[in-house]
């Protein structure tokens, strides 16, 4: 029997669309629907129109949570992407032990985030933790802090953990991108007298701009989706200093039973992330044209 050319392509799409519908589309549609209701997750659902969105717009804690996540993203761009880039530059220079370093730096990416969070909560612990103990051993007692209990350091402390995990991930992306840089370009630069730093800064990094752009997009959208580290390490504290939109809306839904309000916040968060993604996609599309012009 001859396959129907019009129907067959759609049939191939059915499994993927079913998974997408189940795992993405349906939850999004339901969350959108819940965002117009007042509902605690069990009882009667009441339609409240745009009230939840108005409440979110006026909620100082929700607004602050966006500020915190923006600061977190700024920190992780440095600690994950920039550090990952530098590490990739270092390990891509052919030296003995490069493979060992790549594996070692990438290893944290493979650990479950909850395990990482618990581990680092102990490292930061004021009373039993490694960090403060190390500072004492190095004669730096004055630098001791309650790292996760001080609003001035808590967000940075969580960001450092995120950097510890994901710098290896971005290093791997950049390492792969560096390996695509034509060797004749590198050799020509060397013949012109370029050192490793100049090669890195003036040749390799500009040539992997697309990989950097994609990494920034991943870092920014991933930052907005951050949850597990914050939930385990600080639970939004101290005094709300590490409250980010995801922890705030999860508390709203699961602790206080405000499913409608939490859904509205989730939709706002989704809209922000999608908008940022679109902006990045547009920037990414335009830049090669300018370069080629």
């Amino acid at each position, binding site marked *: 029997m001859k396959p129907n050319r019009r129907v067959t392509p*759609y049939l191939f799409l059915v499994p993927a669309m079913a998974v997408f519908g189940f795992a993405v589309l349906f939850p999004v549609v339901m969350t959108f629907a819940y965002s117009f209701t007042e509902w605690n*997750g069990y*009882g009667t659902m009441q339609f409240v129109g745009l009230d939840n969105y108005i409440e979110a717009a006026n909620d100082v804690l929700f607004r602050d949570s966006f500020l915190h996540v923006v600061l977190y993203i700024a920190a992780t761009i440095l600690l994950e992407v920039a550090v990952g880039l530098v590490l990739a530059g270092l390990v891509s220079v052919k030296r003995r032990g490069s493979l060992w370093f790549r594996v070692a730096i990438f290893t944290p990416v493979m650990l479950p985030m909850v395990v990482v969070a618990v581990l680092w909560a102990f490292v930061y*612990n*004021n009373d039993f933790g490694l960090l403060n103990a190390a500072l004492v051993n190095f004669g730096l007692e004055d630098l001791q802090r309650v790292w996760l209990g001080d609003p001035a350091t808590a967000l940075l402390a969580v960001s450092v953990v995120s950097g510890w995990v994901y710098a290896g991930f971005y290093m791997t992306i950049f390492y792969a991108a560096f390996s695509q840089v034509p060797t004749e370009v590198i050799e020509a630069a060397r013949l012109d007298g370029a050192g490793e730093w100049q090669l890195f800064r003036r040749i390799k990094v500009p040539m992997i701009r697309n990989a950097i752009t994609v990494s920034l997009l991943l870092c920014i959208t991933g930052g907005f989706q951050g949850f597990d580290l914050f939930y385990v390490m600080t639970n939004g504290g101290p005094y709300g200093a590490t409250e980010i939109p995801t922890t705030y809306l999860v508390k709203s839904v*699961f602790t206080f039973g405000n499913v409608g309000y939490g859904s509205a916040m989730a939709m706002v968060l989704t809209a922000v992330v999608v908008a940022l993604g679109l902006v990045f996609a547009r920037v990414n599309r335009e830049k090669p044209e300018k370069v080629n012009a």
Partner: protein
Amino acid sequence: MTDRRKVTTGAVAALSATALILTGCSAGGGSSDDNVLRVAMGSPGEAQIRVWDDVAAQFEAANPDVTVEMNYQNDDLYQTIGLPNLLNGRNAPDIYFEWAGARLEQRAADGFAADLTEAVTTGPIAGLFDDEVFSSLTVDDAVVMVPHAADVTNVLWYNEDIFAENGLTPPTTWDELLATCDALDAEGIIPIASGNKDLWAAGNWLAHLTSRVVGEDVYSSALSGETDFDTPEWVEAFGYVKELADHNCVNESANAVDDNEGAQLFFQGKAAMHAIGSWLVSWAIDEAPGLNFDYVNLPSMPGKGNQDSVIGVVTGYVVNAKSSNQDLAAEFLALLNSDENVQAFIGAELTPMALSASDGEEVDSRSAKLLDMLETAPAIVLPPDNGYDLETANALYAALAEVLGGQSSPEDAVAGIDNKLS
């Protein structure tokens, strides 16, 4: 019908069917209709888990066609995300742990609490408890929970050895407490350990403190949303919390560590006191068997409240109104409170509320004293997170944590509660 229209119609039908299937998948909230009796709770600790598992085995032996599935979750997880998820799931528990008060009333209002009146009056549970205990477990004239234990949710535990070494006696007044803090702090010992990352640990203790200052009626009316927090008496009460901070009474890390880490400071002898509930007895016996400890109730405060009040709550088990195994569940709860099992729980350092608890196995002296203190208390204060609306409780706890951590003045903190709740 054209091919294009056929495809479109087919696609719409497929999508509709998918949506229906998905809707069906998500429509949980009911207990499955099978011979499995599901019991859910926050983890009660290894010693009690052994008793629970034994009760389950006894029940299965008496009912060969029934399987009992025990679900022990992390305490904090159970109290927040865990139980709601379970109740909304396809295999919802038939029996679940709950706290009396606002939470229990909410469960009943949401249709997750079966009417157990018949079971406790003429059914399998009849005669196992003093009738008076059901008054706080009744919603709309229906008994909706079978009590298991009465928790004093906060007292001041102290390390007897540290106190003896430093020539201290357990504080019974506010001034004595501050003097004790000063003496311990001067010796480099943390006076009071607290793990308040999740806000309830110190929140519960300090809420009791504020109730002693503002009086039980003002405390209750503010937490019920009937009156404001931003009043002179609440500012005064928060002023005492500031004094605790000023006297370095609490570990610097209090708001950064959880209740477990806070308890470890006490268990390891780094802190001389620990403000937490009656569950510390079995916990300490498990984790710090050599610890020599006892407790005092919150020292009396200069204030309008009853200075002998006790903060506590009854906990127990609710039968899911959506369970198809409600009769089995009632029988299980009766077995749970049988003489033999009550004695087994006492052996696991829990003091059940069943009448038979006073016979046989010797209760830990501290647990017995706590239960007696609760039963004879001239005033019982409900913990904010069990007795009242959770958002209000959380706002109070967050404000108390801010003052305890030196982040807010008492005036700003109480004003902040009202702002948050408005």
